């Protein structure tokens, strides 16, 4: 208080724009660069998991709950399994599920949204109803219902999570298509006799994809969390296969004595989600529009 007049002395620039400008002018997007580095590391580890000089994630050792050290860089868990190896192989599941589900959701959601936004009318109402129907379950409840109805496993997870992602992509694709459909280049294409399909594919798709791709990063972050949540609850990737969520759940039992068993997967989640969020924010600031969930 006390600094009276400054209430109106706030610079008359919308906040996000100001931040974006400042970032772009004299700062490298450090968050995004660090995020990209971490994600590249995780993805490389996931892809090369077999080739890395690591013990098998399921092989039982004779040192239990060891602290990080020379033999086991991140220590061992309560069954004597190497934690680093389980983190690396766990990244495989998490990344496969997140990337797979996001891709499927994008491939289904974007056409739905574009068709809905381009043709409007009855088509729009029909697709809107479908999307609203999928949105009418609370996300976690929806996931649990789908996962229990189908056989547990990676494919089920991808199906369930992509169903969760479709409405987001459809919504953003639709909004952007509507905004673009009245633009001159679309009118010109129409005047030249282009069919709706051609307009959608050649004129609109590329323009819609930019905001959609920046959304994809955010969706990926939510899906990593969703997969982790399910695995944590014991409904995700079935136990012998390592997963970060499963490791967290297992580490809970020895929280008092071996907190590192919980902290290591927790940090992995933290950095991964932070990385996706930072990249998503950066992409959105570049694209200028887009949407969060």
């Amino acid at each position: 208080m006390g600094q009276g007049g400054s209430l109106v002395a706030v610079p008359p620039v919308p906040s996000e724009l100001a931040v974006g400008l400042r970032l772009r002018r004299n700062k490298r997007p450090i968050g995004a660069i660090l995020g990209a580095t971490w994600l590249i590391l995780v993805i490389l580890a996931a892809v090369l998991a077999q080739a890395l000089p690591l013990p098998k994630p399921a092989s039982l050792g004779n040192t239990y709950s060891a602290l990080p050290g020379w033999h086991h860089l991140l220590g061992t868990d309560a069954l004597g399994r190497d934690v680093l190896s389980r983190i690396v192989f766990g990244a495989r599941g998490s990344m496969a599920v997140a990337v797979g589900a996001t891709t499927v959701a994008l491939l289904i959601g974007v056409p739905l949204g574009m068709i809905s936004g381009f043709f409007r009318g009855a088509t729009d109402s029909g697709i809107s109803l479908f999307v609203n129907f999928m949105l009418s379950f609370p996300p976690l409840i929806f996931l649990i219902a789908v996962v229990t109805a189908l056989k547990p496993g990676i494919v089920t997870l991808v199906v369930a999570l992509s169903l969760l992602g479709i409405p987001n992509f459809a919504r953003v694709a639709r909004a952007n298509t509507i905004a673009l459909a009245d633009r001159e280049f679309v009118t010109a294409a129409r005047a030249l006799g282009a069919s709706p399909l051609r307009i959608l594919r050649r004129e609109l798709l590329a323009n819609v994809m930019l905001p959609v791709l920046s959304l994809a990063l955010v969706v990926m972050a939510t899906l990593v969390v969703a997969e982790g949540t399910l695995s944590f609850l014991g409904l995700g990737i079935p136990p012998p296969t390592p997963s970060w969520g499963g490791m967290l759940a297992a580490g809970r039992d020895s929280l008092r004595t071996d907190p590192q068993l919980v902290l290591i997967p927790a940090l992995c989640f933290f950095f991964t989600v932070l990385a996706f969020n930072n990249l998503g924010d950066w992409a959105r600031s570049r694209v200028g529009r887009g949407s969060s969930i």
Partner: protein
Amino acid sequence: MIRTKDPTATERPSVATPGEPGVATGKVPDRQTERRTSSVLLRRSRRWAAAVGRLVLLLFLVTASTFMLLKLTPGSPIDSILPPDATPAQIASARKQFDLDQPLVIQYVRWIGHVLHGDLGRSYRTHEQVLSMIRHAAPVSLEIAALALLTALVLSVPVAVWSAYRPGRLVDRVATALTSATLATPAFVLAILLVYVFGVRLGWFPILGWVPFSEDPVEHVRHLVLPVVTLALGQCVLFTKLLKGDMMATLQQDHVLSARARGLPTWRILIKHALRQSSFSLVTVMGVVVGQLIGGTVLVESIFSIPGMGTLLIGAVSSRDYIVIQAIVLMTALLYLVLNALVDRSYPLLDPRVRKGRAW
């Protein structure tokens, strides 16, 4: 109380709702025509009718799909009721008893009839009425969710207001850093970290369990703290971000300047003139928030072993008690759907600026 009419607000075609990039601005109805009351009434009633129609359709789809959930699941409900060595005659009579020999449509209609009469069936496992199981569990979950929402608001509103008033200063910076850190921490990770720090290391709060209020009010509150804080922190992020953004935009507006010129104290301008107008977008995300709270409650209950709907659901999932799963999915989906419809319908009541086309 004097409500200052805000000239800039009416000029603005739409409230900047996050997630709707410029859709709503597409077709702005002509102000002249909107002034004509008869057409407004007609349009409004038509919109309500359309909304009710959509809601009914969605209700049908939601109930039908939860009904199908039970049909899709491996193994028929009979398997879990009859002994494994049941004779074909026993199976046939059981099928008849549960209407399983009827066409699917008839089964659905009968099931809906039962549901409307409050009969959600009996648990396969405990043979308890599902409705009474839910009746015991629901208040616990509702209490946690409501307290979390309240806590989130109490924590985030002052922080957001102050960050918007003094952007780039200490409070704002700390809040921004904390927000992005919390955003990157999944709820279950946050829960475990809180348990570790405040439960295991510091020993301030019990790390799991539940004591009913009637038994011991103090213990009741102590057991509530960690679950509620876990849930609330997640919501805080959303609230702070949204409210801060809106507040910063509002503080640029002329009516704030005019209030300042009239010499009103800062707190009064912030709270009466800016906050009221800015809090609108909090309402617009309530639908999302309810969804997150329902999901979050499930998670938090299972982590802290609290006997609410979430524990019931997870227990039912692990013991394949499909009829309980179905009932909970149905109840939460209906609750979510109806609350979302109410939230959607409430924007035009709360803010005249959005009384026009919708976007999903």
